[in-house]
């Protein structure tokens, strides 16, 4: 399964990842990502029929009761926001609609 990567595809991925790439970045990434994906193609030759996927190696149950616990005060949680409104307990963002 060869995947020649196009600039249009790189632009599509950049949109999905919320990255506004420069023209130069698009050119470079198209070449570099194609190289890396071509290298990763070697996995296709391995027979993995019926092999389970490993997403993580945790051995134990991680469930716990959903209990209320102390957490950061709102003012501290907002302390690093580039445009916080601590008195209102809110993050300010640019216009979303129109």
């Amino acid at each position, binding site marked *: *399964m060869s*995947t020649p990567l196009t600039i249009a595809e*790189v632009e599509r*991925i*950049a*949109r*999905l*990842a*919320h*990255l*506004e*790439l*420069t023209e130069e*970045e698009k050119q*470079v*990434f198209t070449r*570099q*990502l194609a*190289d*890396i*994906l071509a*290298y*990763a193609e*070697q*996995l*296709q030759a*391995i027979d*993995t029929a019926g*092999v*389970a*996927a*490993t*997403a*993580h*190696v*945790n*051995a*134990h149950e*991680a469930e*716990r009761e959903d209990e209320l616990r102390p957490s*950061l005060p709102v003012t*501290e*949680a907002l*302390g*690093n*926001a*580039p*445009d916080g409104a601590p008195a209102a307990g809110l*993050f300010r*963002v*640019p*216009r*979303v609609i129109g």
Partner: protein
Amino acid sequence: MSRAAGGVRSIAGDIAAGRVSAVEVCREALDRIARVNPSLNAFNLVTEERALERAAHVDRLRAAGSALGPLAGVPIAVKDNMCVRGMRTTASSRILDAFVPPYDATVISKLEQAGAVIVGKTNCDEFAMGSSNENSAYGPVRNPWASDRTPGGSSGGSAAAVAASCVGLALGSDTGGSIRQPASFCGVTGVKPTYGRVSRYGLLAFASSLDQIGPLTRNVEDAALALSVLSGPDPMDSTAAREAVPDFTATLDGNARGVRIGVPRAFVSEGVDSSVLAAFEGALDVLRATGASLVDIELPHAKYAIPVYYLVCTAEASSNLARYDGVKYGYRSPEASHGLNEMYSKSRDEGFGAEVKRRIMLGTYVLSAGYYDAFYLKAQQVRTLLKQDYDRAFETVDVVVMPTSPTPPFRLGEKTDDPLQMYLADVFTVSVNLVGLPGISVPCGLVDAPRAGDVDRLPVGLQLVGKMFDEATILRVAEAFERSTEWSRQVPPMV
């Protein structure tokens, strides 16, 4: 030579016995940093005032006859991707240039509880993504052994700080080799604990199924001591394991009798620098002399670990780094005037460096519709086969031995134009993270590298990999190896 070169145990012992005050030790570390950091660039931040206050507190405790922790007064450095309350933490990224965490990582609480004194935050590859420390927004770290070479990455600043005797203990994080490879490149000891052994709470996430925090030190005993402090369950990290934490220093007995060590001959024979292979063969002879028995083993899927790793880690990174959006913390582009989406994408393009963007792009691609099965799912299946390889090997051996890196430290700029070549440098370290095992790198040689009429001596590391939660055995073998050689006592010419 500074006190830090003697290691953590000796510093803590001197302070506890009153041979030196914690403040004197702290000043010595700060002076040393001030002297070498302009050329090394190992520190993003030095916290002089806070450190001296903490050291004075240790001295007061001692004067009052209070019990001192095992690391009381010991200066330590922390990789700049771990949160310390009130201390700027950047992950060496422009996007977090002004970030001041409102809480401590669990490892920080544990170390400070044990009396350690943080003297600064160390430079690293941006968000721990890199193998040379060249992907830092604050410039590369230089190798203390040869200033035109990389210290390795991503915990390059931590390894350089220990090698240059600024501190006897530095924290690193290891997602695909980021503690072990810089330890190898800088001639120090570095441990990647079993996945889950150490809490990740407060570590800025890169790839959550692979990331682990661990110590970089001058010797194995210090690493064992630090690991005993760092390990344990944590209600703030559901992946932190509940396994009992032994005193890892208690089982260091100077020999490796009865330990069966597996050598994956076929895997180690390909693409390895001849100087590294020679050091590796010499190390195998030493291991035999310490009482271990060596047997050849097969890890048939290990050669696929790099593609598997770079598909898995980038997929996880693309998800983890979605949180940097210019809203909750970090950099927001002043250029965005067309609404929220433009603000997101401009802030992220201006805030992230090239390697981070490349990995976010690759991860987004392999998780996207139409490619998920062929890349991400396939990689996870091969991850299972890799785990089965190690399971099978550990039926007959207790430890697996490999070089840590296929080459001695390479030159700054040597691989920066070709990301794939940079990724290949991780061939012996990434499989260990994919299957969750503990690994340690210890110095096993110095190789000569000619430079402009002179000769640099470059460190080489030996990697020992153990069974899940059996750090004790790899530490025991590593310490026996260390006692039988002089490599861990070598220091760079600048020291």
